[in-house]
């Protein structure tokens, strides 16, 4: 019974990513898209926090990384097709609106 959390808001001016990390449970995964991918820039305290997540629990939308000139190794990059597949692989999707 695991949840895929989707966060798209900017990580440094908005509390959604931090709140999401607070409720992230074992088996859950986090997909960063939009401005939220900026959280993957190393080295930074936020990237450090994200690096502590279990292997396979962190994803990023590749297009949003590329658009921002972000080369990152913390998250597994996915395209839109894989995003859809991921949504189906978890019991529920929680989008942090």
């Amino acid at each position, binding site marked *: *019974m*695991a*949840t895929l959390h989707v966060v798209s808001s900017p990580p440094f001016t908005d*509390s959604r990513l931090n*709140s999401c990390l*607070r*409720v*992230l*449970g*074992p088996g*859950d995964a986090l997909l960063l898209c939009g401005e939220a991918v900026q959280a993957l820039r190393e080295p930074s305290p936020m990237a450090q926090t994200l690096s502590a997540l279990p292997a396979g629990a962190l994803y990023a939308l590749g297009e949003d990384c590329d658009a921002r000139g972000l080369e990152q190794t913390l998250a597994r990059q996915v395209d839109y097709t894989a995003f859809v597949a991921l949504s189906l692989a978890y*019991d*529920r*999707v*929680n*989008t*942090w*609106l």
Partner: protein
Amino acid sequence: MARSLLMVSRRAPWSGLGAREALDIVLAGGAYELPVAMLFMDDGVLQLVKGQAPQLLEQKNLGANLQALPLFGIEALFVCGASLAERGLSAEHLALDARIMQASDLAMLFNQYNEVITL
């Protein structure tokens, strides 16, 4: 079998429509007898504070709608303990009888519902 819903309400009560919209979804679900629960976290916990006077801001009182939750069969009400503590709040400040959840319990709470909406 109706699918159950957890509404996570994290907007402050008097800035924007988010708090009221979350409440409307929950009350609508309750009216149709869907299994619905509500978790207040982040600024959403401010909705529960006693003694607010939104008429001074020319806003409708959200508190009256919150009090209606049990009448609509929504008795599963939870509040994030860490969000309360960050805002200098504790159980005594709350106008509604909601169960205070510690961070470790929150992930398990999500697992008990089919759908989650976070507003």
